[in-house]
């Protein structure tokens, strides 16, 4: 593979992996979150292919496509608004009552939205993390410093519905972001400060055969431990998940 092609593929897949994981955290729609994360995992599988670990790449996709679809079903089942009210695409007034999800949205935010319809330039702005912070002009939240967003905006973090708190993130988001940033930055600095050796050449091999042989000889303990782990998971799932 020529260097240009390899770099292009690497950059595409790396962008996909990082953007997918990040978008997963920033979207209101649960289904979109699952699909974005699936995209991230599939990009990582693509990176595995670039690293010539074809078997692991296939296993990764097999596991995570199934796993993410199951997760999406659970999120849709358990969260109060899995569609993010279908990403808050504000429906036209006359079609409002045809859609229940939007109708609730409408009831709750009705006054605010009507206001903004009557006087379009008197837009209200609110902090994604602190719904009680309101302002008539765009700016920064006095409490956490995040950018204020218009209340009728689609993809902001907070919605009130049926009196329930609908925020995706809790109030410690800023410290969490700092910790995450520090963790990533420390690792990144460590990675970049070291002079890594280049890759040795690779013979043409059948990874399925080699992994199978290793699993049945040197790493049989991993194989049997996996069986125990899987049955533990099954029993746990059945006990915890069954109906009363």
């Amino acid at each position, binding site marked *: 593979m020529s260097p240009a092609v390899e770099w292009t593929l690497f950059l595409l897949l790396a962008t996909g992996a990082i953007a997918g994981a990040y978008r997963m955290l920033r979207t209101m*729609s649960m289904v979109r979150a699952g699909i974005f994360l699936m995209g991230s995992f599939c990009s990582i599988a693509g990176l595995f292919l670039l690293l010539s670990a074809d*078997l692991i790449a296939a296993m990764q996709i097999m596991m995570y496509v199934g796993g993410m679809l199951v997760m999406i079903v659970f999120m849709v089942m358990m969260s109060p608004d899995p569609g993010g009210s279908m990403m808050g*695409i504000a429906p036209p007034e006359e079609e409002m009552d045809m859609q229940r999800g939007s109708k609730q949205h409408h009831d709750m935010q009705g006054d605010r939205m009507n206001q903004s319809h009557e006087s379009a330039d008197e837009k209200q702005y609110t902090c994604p993390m602190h719904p009680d912070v309101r302002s008539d002009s765009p700016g920064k939240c006095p409490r956490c410093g995040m950018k204020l967003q218009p209340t009728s905006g689609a993809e902001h973090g907070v919605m009130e519905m049926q009196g329930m708190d609908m925020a995706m993130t809790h109030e410690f988001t800023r410290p969490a972001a700092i910790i995450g940033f520090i963790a990533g930055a420390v690792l990144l600095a460590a990675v970049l400060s070291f002079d890594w050796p280049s890759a040795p050449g690779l013979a043409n091999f059948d990874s399925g*055969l080699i992994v199978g042989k290793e699993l049945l000889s040197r790493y049989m303990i991993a194989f049997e431990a996996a069986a125990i782990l899987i049955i533990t998971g099954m029993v746990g799932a059945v006990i915890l998940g069954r109906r009363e």
Partner: protein
Amino acid sequence: MNVLTNAAYALLLFAIGTFLTATLDTAIRERVWHPKRLVQNISQLVDALLRSDPGHKRIDRVLFFGAAPLAVAAVSVALLVVPVGNWGLAGPSLKVGVFFYLVVLDFLAVALLMAGWGANHKFGTEGAFAVVAQLVSYVVPLGFAVTGAVMAAQSLAATAAVQAQKGLWFGLWQPLGLAIYLVATFGQTFRPPADLPLSEDSNVLIEHHGAGEALLRIALYGIWFSAAAMGATLFLGGWRGPWLPGPLWFVVKTAALLALMSWAGKRYRRLTLKQMLRGAWLILIPASIVNVIIVGLILMVKR
């Protein structure tokens, strides 16, 4: 150059496969053999492909419009690993080809889920739930059925399976494996009688019209073709056969499986969610584990 050849191979197979499948399905389900009527199905698809699919105002646009391209891309990648003849194409000789195929098959379910949920319609959502139910039921038996062929071929490459069937077809001494493969294929490719996500009141295509619907239907035909082709490759000796050239044998065997499946789709009533889940977990999965053990015993004794 090799990359382009492989890509062109997969796309050509996609086009031919869709045409073959659509005409055969029409012929068997509607019992018409008139050539004009046979191509009508295809011409309708092409006609729809030229019309637009604007969706309505409340769809989730990313998911709604992403579904059809994802489905088509998945099918063309899946067809990359199907060997049609002994031409030395790199695509069919991928080292983990069979596993690769099963993996790519899952993306059709993802696409249908996206289509159903993105439509923002009650029936679409129920269709999306049915898609996941079908995936949950049929992936495992399909994988276990394929395992039997992999054990006998001692390789995950599809071409190795064809080479290993020089003497006896796997389908002849693993009839249970072939049967489980075929039954699970209905579920994985959303063919009748296991087409609950495409039925009237849980329909993932409910809001799709024009080009979007046409692309998804083409992908459904294509994936069905690929499943039959893979079945022929793994259990019926692939392109191997006396007298005739390889590709012709491949087409004959695939067409036979397609005809069988089309007939079954006409013969049996649509399965309900409960029937699918219970049938898969109480019959297919135990049977497929038993199949793996039987195949293992036979191979041990034969050695």
